[in-house]
């Protein structure tokens, strides 16, 4: 039915639904907390957590945690993006590279990369380097796979058109293959960014070194349950902002794409 409504009404209904899902979630949380099924320690009420979140925000602890986590996440993600695109495109276009990396990518993609965490700690220490490398290693696979598939499956007729218009082999990659693969490459990046955030927080929880993951562990050790919950909420918000930012970037970047026209 929503499809038959006039755009303005439809938009306000969708907004109401989005806000409604948030209200429902926090309402259910608050009711469960008030019912005392769990003790106040195991499940603090929404106002307590909100107050704590506000307190940490004003004190600057929250902001410095978020900034530290985001810096590590973005550096690791940037390494994965650049490395993944280069590797994916090379795999698609150079048979020797494909021969070598095809089995490695197939083995690495489904593997839980965090399993390497102890080894990374031994190799690269427990500070930023190991966290960033762990993030890059975990989030590079979807980028490789999508860049590979995107540049492998370029429409034959489009390729031929470009050739008959006079493109050479070197320029073909930049002028035809990469722009044609962009929607799929971007899908890879959209999958990779949340993975980067997750892995960075897991690393912080395992190795310490502050950031949002580190702060959760600190609060846990001090049996500070509102603090733990406050950081869980903060992580959720940061994650949501990142995902939405990627969606908006996608729409801007792929203005020409079919999906943008029909949305």
């Amino acid at each position, binding site marked *: 039915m929503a499809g038959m409504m006039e755009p303005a009404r439809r938009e306000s209904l969708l907004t109401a639904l989005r806000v409604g899902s948030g209200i429902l979630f926090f309402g259910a949380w608050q009711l469960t907390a008030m019912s005392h099924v769990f003790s106040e320690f195991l499940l603090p009420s929404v106002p307590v957590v909100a107050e704590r979140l506000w307190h940490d925000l004003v004190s600057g602890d929250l902001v410095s945690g978020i900034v530290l986590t985001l810096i590590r996440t973005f550096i690791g993600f940037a390494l994965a993006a650049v490395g993944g695109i280069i590797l994916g495109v090379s795999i698609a276009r150079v048979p020797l590279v494909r021969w070598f990396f095809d089995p490695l990518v197939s083995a690495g993609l489904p593997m839980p990369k965090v399993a390497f965490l102890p080894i990374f700690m031994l190799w690269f220490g427990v500070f930023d380097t190991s966290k960033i490398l762990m993030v890059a290693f975990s989030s590079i696979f979807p980028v490789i796979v999508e860049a590979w598939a995107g540049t492998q499956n370029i*429409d034959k*007729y*489009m390729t*031929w*058109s*470009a*050739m*008959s*218009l*006079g*493109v050479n082999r070197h320029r073909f990659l930049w002028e*035809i293959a990469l*722009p*044609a693969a*962009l929607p799929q490459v971007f899908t890879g990046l959209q999958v990779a960014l949340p993975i980067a955030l997750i892995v960075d927080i897991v690393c912080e929880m395992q190795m310490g070194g502050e950031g949002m993951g580190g702060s959760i562990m600190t609060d846990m050790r001090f049996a500070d349950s509102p603090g733990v919950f406050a950081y869980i909420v903060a992580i959720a918000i940061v994650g949501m902002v990142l995902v939405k930012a990627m969606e908006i970037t996608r729409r801007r970047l792929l*203005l*020409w*794409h*079919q999906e*943008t*026209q029909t949305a």
Partner: protein
Amino acid sequence: MAGISFSEVRHTYRPPRGKPVLALESVSLDVQDREFVALLGPSGCGKSTLLYLLGGFIPVESGAITVGGKPVNGPGRERGIVFQNFALFPWKTVRQNILYGLEKQGMAKVEREKRTQDLVELVHLKGFEDSYPSQLSGGMKQRVAIARTLAVEPEILLMDEPFGALDAQTRALMHEELLAIMRRAPKTVVFVTHDVREAVYLADRVAVMSARPGRIKEIVDTKLKSNARGEELLQTREFNDRVDHLWKLVRDEAIRAQGAHE
């Protein structure tokens, strides 16, 4: 001079999995400079393959194809091609699509902007210069593809069922536009189609191809004496006789092609 000569061209299609298939068996055909020849045949007869060989997109394995006396060796700007599925660059606007070949030629900026604007007007797309292909209808997309190909001024136009994806009305309009463009700047055209009426309407000669493996079964002269155009021409005896004759030839092959599959 942009005459084309196919001489005993054979082609075997080798699918990644499965047995090789003989697609073309000894095709010989000469196309004169500025002649419009249609390749007509049932689907799967290898007519598009023949066009791709001429385009230089797939290598000639056996026999020879020459253009202006020189053997075909890869794609070239003197042979422009238009595909059924338009094959536009979706990330480029109408203007950028048309400009692409001119940029590759190294044409000066002022000159190529002007040429592009002329072509936009030629194919009636004024006002859509900055639209992306995904915002256009099928007919408009094909006009962009034609303009993009014409931009580099090829001597030969290769058309691979260019109007096959369009509705009947749009197709009729495109026929008129193509003929008008050809009158302004005549070219050698090789036009692949399975539409008998389209072939008779557009072409000077129609080469009917047999079911796989493809051969030239018969070449029919379709240069009509009548001066009528459009709807009127379609009503003439001369036109309909040619259509009937070709239709019988194609139908026989289509039936044979079906029999071969069973």
